[in-house]
């Protein structure tokens, strides 16, 4: 059964960071025109009359060594992207705070997205790391690199591992990295389209220099937020109308 996905921009306001009314929220995640780094004891604080709830999510970054997991986490958090490949020898988590506006009722939330990045070779060497990453995970980003065909071909295997009973509900997105290195591109646009249709999993593309900070990451973060929110609604609905859904399945 293919999962039913929200179409892009149907739940949250796309490109909200460009709208005027978003400014006071996005200012809270910026400092001197750069993304602000929050410690675990901090979070964006709005003035008392603007009550904003924060929703927490855990996201696992999956993909082979060198594909760009650490670079993606840095990109999404707006910190410096490493230009050398140094293997990540354990788990590193990165927190991204992202304001989101719901289309339906105009409510604003801060999404607190915690990205879990674990080096592929470390995963292989130490058995306890993968279970730690899977614990209470809400979403998985499957990474492939546009410059490495095998990483693309392996996607279906990777996704299959995260489908089925033991894992529970997990949002799945695919991210193609190094899209900027088109001279070395090893994955054709047609292949990506086919893949997207077969698996009905959205594929996002990243790569290149970070320019203005928000515009680069907004499509990915909004897409992720939209799917997470949708999943929460489905989960909440299915527990509330559990009997109803069962009838539907029987039919």
């Amino acid at each position, binding site marked *: 059964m293919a999962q039913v996905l929200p179409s892009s921009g149907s739940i949250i306001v796309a490109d909200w960071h460009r709208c005027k009314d978003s400014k006071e929220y996005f200012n809270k995640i910026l400092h001197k025109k750069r993304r602000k*780094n*929050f*410690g*675990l*004891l*901090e979070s964006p604080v709005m003035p008392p009359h603007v009550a904003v709830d924060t929703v927490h999510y*855990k996201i696992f970054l999956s993909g082979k060594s060198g594909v760009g997991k*650490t670079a993606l*986490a*840095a990109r999404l*958090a707006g*910190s*410096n992207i*490493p230009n050398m490949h*140094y*293997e990540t*020898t*354990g*788990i*590193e*988590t*990165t*927190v991204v705070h992202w304001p989101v506006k719901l289309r339906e009722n105009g409510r604003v939330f801060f999404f607190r997205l*915690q990205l879990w*990045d674990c*080096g592929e*070779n*470390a995963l292989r*060497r*130490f058995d*306890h*790391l993968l279970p*730690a990453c899977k*614990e*209470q995970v809400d979403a998985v980003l499957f990474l492939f690199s546009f410059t490495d065909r095998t990483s693309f071909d392996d996607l279906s295997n990777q996704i299959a591992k995260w489908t089925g009973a033991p894992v529970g509900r997990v949002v799945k997105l695919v991210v193609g990295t190094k899209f900027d290195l088109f001279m070395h591109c090893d994955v054709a646009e047609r292949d990506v389209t086919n893949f997207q249709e077969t698996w009905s999993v959205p594929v996002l593309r990243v790569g290149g220099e970070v320019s203005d900070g928000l515009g680069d990451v907004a499509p990915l973060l909004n897409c992720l937020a939209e799917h997470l929110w949708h999943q929460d609604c489905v989960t909440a609905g299915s527990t509330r109308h559990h009997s109803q859904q069962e009838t539907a399945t029987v039919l």
Partner: protein
Amino acid sequence: MMLQHGSTQLLCLTASSGVPLFTRGASKQLPFSVIGSLNGVHMFGGGQGVVLSSCETEGGGKVVWRVFQDSVMLIIVSGGGQDGAGDIKEEEVRLQRLLENVWSCMVLVLGQDELTNVRNVERLKRDLRSCFSLIDQLLEDRQQGVLGNLTHCVDSLLPPNPTLLQEALDSFAQAADSEFGCLIVHGRIAAATEKWWRLAPQEVVLLSALIRSLTASGSASCDYPVFLPHGSPTVAHRLLRFQLLPGADVCVLCGPTPSLHSAESGMVGRFWTPLVETLRDCLAVGEHSLPKSVSLHPDVLALLLINRETRRSVSCVRTSTNRPLGDPPLPSKARCWEILKLFYIFSTTRYFNQEETLCVSPEERAQRGNTEDFICGFSHQPLQCYLVTEECKSYGLQTPQHQLFVLAPLSVPTFALRGVATQTLSDIVAGTGF
């Protein structure tokens, strides 16, 4: 002359068969034939019952060999003193330290078993790549204000409110089922549990280096498997690290529990939220490492103070000492850190005891004799020494408890240096109990 002046290259080979495992450092790699010869000449010595440990080249370059656990050979080649300063002796000490640190960091990441029972060389080569981040950091050694890699005394920061932080840390570590915890502020240890200080000094220094590199990435938390080169070289522990505030991190060494997720959601906020302001005060100490309440003598340009018992150090370079018009220019901040290192090596190789003799085999130590030549000729132990160069004046003194190294501007009369140094020592000790 094999390498460019000022550059350092590290070679790693299997000790038994000389198979190259990796090379790091220096943009231009040494040709394979040179690497082969360097290994060959060491092997030849071995066949003759001679341990070749180091040699100098005509152009002021230096090569140091070292075999670890009969399994891995590290060779370091340097193209001469950094910035042209320091003579060949200083350079050798620096390189010896570097080799020990590199080996320890290989053990830290991979564990001793993988390095000593090599079954599959190709696999080892691949796994060694996971050490490159730390090794490169050690080779570059660019971080200003970090002297622990050299002194093997832990770079510390003395917080204005140590008791509160200590209590929070102790309870946090206890809740995480760990006896080993530390609080790192600006890359320096601001508080640590009793047991953390009982780790081997080299381990504490390496863990600090690892934590600094993790902090630099801006990540919020980590769960890193680490082996302790002395305490647990074959069984990995988990280093959990949490960024409380940017620049302030708390770490614990754990067994299988708690999970990163549960420690973060259940303990970090509970123990540390009440201390946010205390942590901010601690961050405000900045790279000075000393609380504002300690006022330093105006003639102190930079200082390194080592507590010989606890094997901790504090150091700082002051940015603005007002210099009367017409005085010679002061060395830059970066240069002061460099001079501080060189003066430390100068004093400890010639006059003072280095805190822990470089960990070498006894046979090698006999041949090496850095401190020995001078000290052996005397029946007493020097307590103070000074050095005047074109850039600044340096003064060192040691007591049973401390070693202090201070830099002062050239304008300070040499006879006044002793007074400046002794007063600095007593000011800091009285003000902080360090």
